[in-house]
């Protein structure tokens, strides 16, 4: 084979390799970008496995809801305007929720006199079991079951426990995923109470 033929064959080989390689490289690039944007996991499981503060849309108004509490009263979130509110999504079958229940009960007693209100919203649960759990945990704050699942969907809930901190103007200012300890809860509450 002459040198010119060899050169032509090499060019053809390179072109075929490029035609195969370019789509492959582009595919893996898109896959990499998508994975980095999703944090590597397309979705979690119902019980939150990663704990910590999560991003919120700064200044977004908390979606209003009405909850029938275990006491039989109708609680409307917008009625709590003027106070700091912590909305906690939980379930009676969720181990991290069981673990943090005493922490929340104790913290509520300390922060309630400072104009703070806690609201417990049981999701994906049986009403009777949720009520029994609330009684046994000794939580003094109002709680009820999100029977239609609308409150959870309105807050974009992806796992439990999950907490939303709402300022006196009704804006969501913090979101916390997973169970909180006394220390982490105190840190958040003191920061919110100190805010102008």
């Amino acid at each position, binding site marked *: *084979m*002459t040198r010119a*033929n060899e050169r032509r064959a090499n060019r*053809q080989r390179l*072109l*075929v390799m490029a*035609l*195969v390689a*370019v*789509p492959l490289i*582009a*595919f893996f690039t*898109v896959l990499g*970008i*998508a994975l980095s944007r*999703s944090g590597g*996991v*397309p*979705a*979690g*499981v*119902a019980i939150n496995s990663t704990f910590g503060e999560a991003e919120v849309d700064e200044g977004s108004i908390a979606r209003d809801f009405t909850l029938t509490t275990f006491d039989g009263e109708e609680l409307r979130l917008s009625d709590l305007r003027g106070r700091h509110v912590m909305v906690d999504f939980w379930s009676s079958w969720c181990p991290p929720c069981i673990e943090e229940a005493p922490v929340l009960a104790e913290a509520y007693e300390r922060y309630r006199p400072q104009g703070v209100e806690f609201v417990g919203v049981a*999701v*994906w649960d049986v009403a009777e079991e949720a009520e029994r759990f609330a009684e046994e945990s000794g939580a003094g704050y109002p709680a009820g079951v999100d029977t*239609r*699942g*609308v409150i*959870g*969907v*309105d*807050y*974009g*809930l*992806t*796992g439990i426990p999950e907490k939303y901190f709402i300022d006196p103007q009704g804006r969501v200012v913090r979101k916390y995923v997973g169970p909180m300890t006394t220390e982490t809860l105190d840190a958040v509450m003191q920061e919110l109470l100190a805010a102008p």
Partner: protein
Amino acid sequence: MPYDTRCARQAPAPGAMTHVASVRRLAAASLASSAAALALLACTTAVSPLPESEQRAQAIDNSLICPICPGETIDRSQVQLAKDMQVIVRELIAEGRSDEEILQFFVDRYGERVLAAPPREGFHWLVWGLPPAGMALGLLALFWVTQLMGRRPTEAQDSTLRQAQGERGDADLSPYLQQVERELGDGGPSDEWRGSRLRGNDGLEEDA
């Protein structure tokens, strides 16, 4: 009785008759099963037509990913959140919301990751454009390679190829050609070789 040669000529052999009959039976069975399938299809579509709102709801269910079950749309997922979302979809349809408004309702709460198909905008265009572009490039490469394989060699390549084949052919075949010439010169294959062929041995082992 006059013998009808025409009929006799056309009458198939007994074996062929059996074959024709089996083909006819097969064709009849195929026709019957096709008719039954068509009738079943007609029955199912005629008996249970879904209301338009439910058809819309199911289409939307199929367009929404369950946020807590990777890769599953809410119509397939068995978790409570997916069931709650299905109920909300039907409530929003009953309120008179359009499909786009309902999808946007869930995007506002869960982000774009709740959509089973990415929207046709911005970065997402890559996802829509890359597969067809890759397919087109692949087809182009395939077409090009087949063209190359089928192309007649140029005169220069042809002569080079013939030369190479000739040189190699002579080199490869020379022992065998010499063997043939030797055998022909001796007046044919040896008795020993014939004997080995009769015993079922082609003599290659002895040759080796």
